């Protein structure tokens, strides 16, 4: 018999779609116990359009090819001491932030998509989520393998796993993902698949990878290129999820809108770490945070939400506030880390004159007026041997867990404070966005493991800063404090001297 030629779509459908069945020995609601409580209504799972139509044969083939190439580059990077070929020793701090703050999230995504890949009732989304689960495992493992080489020569990497569960600023990304993981499978898909992977990925993953490219980090940028096709699959899944939910039932719209609002704001807060990385930590700058926000959120996100308008979905609440904050966020964050350099797992420094000029040019409305004077004052203090350290523990926002250092919208000299009462306790927030999120789910957010509260409650190794740093496994004097005078800097300088001698 002459076989019919199968198109990709048909082949995928025949090989995948019919695999599932309506269970009869166990009720379907027992087999899929978690996909109803969120109130999302799915009338027809078969309406799910498989965005990639990838079968395992092709998955293994494509991914194996990419891995062979990537690991060849990593091997050669290690052999040639590629870690010493980056633009400047300061650059290494950007990847410290990445390994401690972002890579553990890739791991969380791996397990989270396994949850979605088991518990969504339709076979199409389940297979897509399982593949993403596997991809995310790839990302955490390849990141660890890439950065492993840096760990051998620089401080600040060795305790990334231990620190992610404990260190004060790492509770910002950690709580973000814990929040998504503890949500139902649909909220998870919207939070991570849509808000994070689709709307915000260009503001997280891309800046780190572009930063690597600009700063001669061949290993990280190769990883970035290698992950690009995974990421575009994930973005496609994210947008498909939103469209599917909105097409399935009109009652889904208000639920989805609330999630989009929440996860946009949650994501925006986490991205504050990226903002400061872009503006302050890259020796060779790619673009300013404000420019990135304009391109990737205001323009690209604007077009996206225009496209989604036909489903009734509107631009996330407080998008305007986030856009206004793009003028301030990186400066305020870097200032926080400068003050708390003794408790940070990477090095800090004051921007040089050239860097300050670049910041003035990129932030004509705010930098010279609000932030340059502060840095100049701190520079004077350093000169006088009075480098400023903030020795008080900061109040944290209950929702995003960032120290309350952000200012009022439209009033950059007044710190923003919001609060809510829940079951007789008062909870504090950095913004209306964070307060709204708490007010919508107070029973969830009142559980937040807030690092400063935990220190005061005696749960973090002791009552003094050295006790807490020991509990973080912080190698004091090596992992923390300023770049100048750090062991990292010494090794770098010694290497450069040696290189110059060889070059003669």
């Amino acid at each position: 018999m002459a076989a019919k030629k199968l198109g990709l779509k048909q082949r995928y459908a025949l090989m995948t779609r019919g695999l599932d069945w309506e269970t009869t020995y166990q009720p379907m609601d027992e087999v899929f116990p978690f996909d109803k409580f969120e109130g999302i209504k799915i009338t027809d799972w078969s309406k799910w359009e498989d965005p990639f139509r990838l079968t395992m044969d092709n998955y293994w083939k494509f991914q194996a090819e990419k891995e062979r190439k990537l690991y060849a580059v990593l091997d050669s990077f290690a052999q040639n001491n590629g870690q010493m070929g980056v633009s400047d020793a300061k650059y290494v701090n950007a990847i410290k932030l990445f390994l401690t703050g972002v890579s553990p999230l890739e791991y969380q995504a791996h397990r989270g998509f396994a949850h979605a890949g088991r518990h969504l009732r339709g076979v199409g989304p389940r297979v897509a989520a399982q593949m993403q689960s596997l991809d995310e495992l790839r990302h955490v493992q390849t990141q660890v393998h890439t950065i492993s080489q840096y760990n051998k020569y620089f401080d600040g990497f060795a305790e990334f796993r231990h620190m992610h569960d404990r260190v004060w600023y790492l509770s910002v990304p950690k709580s973000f993902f814990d929040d998504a993981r503890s949500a139902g499978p649909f909220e998870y898909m919207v939070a991570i698949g849509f808000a994070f992977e689709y709307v915000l990925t260009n503001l997280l993953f891309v800046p780190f990878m572009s930063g690597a490219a600009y700063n001669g980090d061949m290993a990280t940028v190769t990883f970035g290129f290698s992950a690009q096709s995974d990421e575009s699959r994930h973005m496609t899944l994210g947008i498909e999820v939103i469209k599917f939910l909105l097409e399935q039932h009109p009652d889904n719209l208000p639920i989805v809108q609330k999630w989009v609002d929440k996860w946009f704001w949650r994501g925006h807060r986490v991205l504050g770490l990226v903002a400061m990385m872009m503006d302050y930590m890259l020796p060779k700058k790619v673009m300013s945070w404000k420019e990135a926000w304009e391109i990737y959120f205001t323009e690209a996100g604007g077009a996206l939400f225009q496209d989604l308008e036909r489903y009734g979905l509107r631009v996330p609440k407080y998008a305007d506030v986030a856009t206004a904050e793009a003028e301030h966020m990186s400066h305020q964050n870097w200032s926080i880390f400068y003050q708390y350099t003794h408790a940070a797992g990477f090095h800090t420094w004051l921007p040089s004159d050239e860097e300050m000029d670049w910041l003035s040019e990129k932030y004509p409305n705010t930098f010279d007026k609000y932030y340059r004077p502060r840095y100049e004052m701190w520079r004077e203090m350093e000169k006088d041997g009075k480098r400023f350290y903030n020795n008080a523990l900061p109040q944290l926002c209950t929702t995003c867990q960032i120290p309350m250092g952000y200012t009022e919208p439209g009033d950059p000299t007044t710190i923003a404070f919001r609060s809510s009462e829940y079951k007789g306790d008062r909870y504090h927030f950095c913004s209306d966005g964070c307060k709204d999120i708490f007010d919508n789910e107070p029973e969830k957010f009142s559980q937040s493991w807030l690092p400063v509260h935990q220190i005061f409650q005696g749960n973090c190794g002791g009552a003094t800063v050295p006790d807490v740093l020991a509990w973080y496994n912080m190698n004091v004097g090596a992992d923390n404090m300023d770049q100048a005078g750090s062991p990292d800097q010494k090794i770098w300088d010694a290497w450069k001297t040696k290189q110059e001698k060889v070059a003669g």
Partner: protein
Amino acid sequence: MTVELRTMSLEPRRHTFGHIARRKGADVPASRYEEGTLDLQATDNFHYKPLWEPEYWVYDTRKTAVVMKDWYDLKDPRQYYYATYNIARANMQQAVERTFSFVEKRAMLDGLDADWREKIIDTLLPMRHVAWGANMNMTNICDRGYGTAVTAPSQFAAMDHLGMAQIISRIGLALDGNSGESLDTAKTAWMDAPHWQDMRHMVEDTLVVKDWFEQYVAQALVIDAVTHAFAFDIMDSAGQTKGGAPISMMTEFMVEWRAEQTRWVDAVIKTAAAESDANRALISGWAKGWLSRAVDAVKPLCAHVVGDASAVSSIEAELSARFAKLGLAL
């Protein structure tokens, strides 16, 4: 004669990450398997209880009755991490592609006896649904399990089952000229044919097992072994005189996979059982219960295909011996 390139050398300040150095000693380099696996899962200071299961944290040792002092003792002897896993499977899949084009080019499936062709459709093809159940269970173990050492290979196994379900699907498509008709017939058999109902009942029951380690025992230790021994040993040999040789070639992936998978599963079970008498008793009880159930479920399939179910007793005997070697008391 040797050729020696001169390079600038640089002494590393440490060999690996702190969490790995604490396990292995600070002066030993770690493998990529170790750096990509050990302690990768978060363990402390979680923020919120899951809305869907507030009695546990997302990562919680209490989701199984098995107790391990260190869940990273359950290492994978294959030392798979994503790259090595995918490369291994891509190589196996390459052989599948060659076989399928070989079989199709020579129209070898036309040589199947008519009655055997029917058996392939109503008994081999529905194995894709068994594989799908296995995919769900192994994904669930990745979701609910504790420690990357066991959860990551569980996701690999889940994808293996999906891949094998798709190989079986392709056998169906090769039989029906890509119409998908044979897959529909197979699904009807899975849903309604009497010889499949014990198996489907059992598979559905595994989908709702709450203790993830019990689910692992049921799926990875028992059901995979029993169903594959039936489909790719017993049924395969029975087909040899009925023109079934091309089917053997097309399912070679499964045979190779089983040998490899067994190494991993045995290592996990052996280590967990050796940890304590309590673990050994629990795992033995689960293995015993699910083995007797799986053997019963495969009997009607065997009877349907080869006329009687006596061949199943050899599966049971072999597995009992294997389990005993792992330290289980059946």
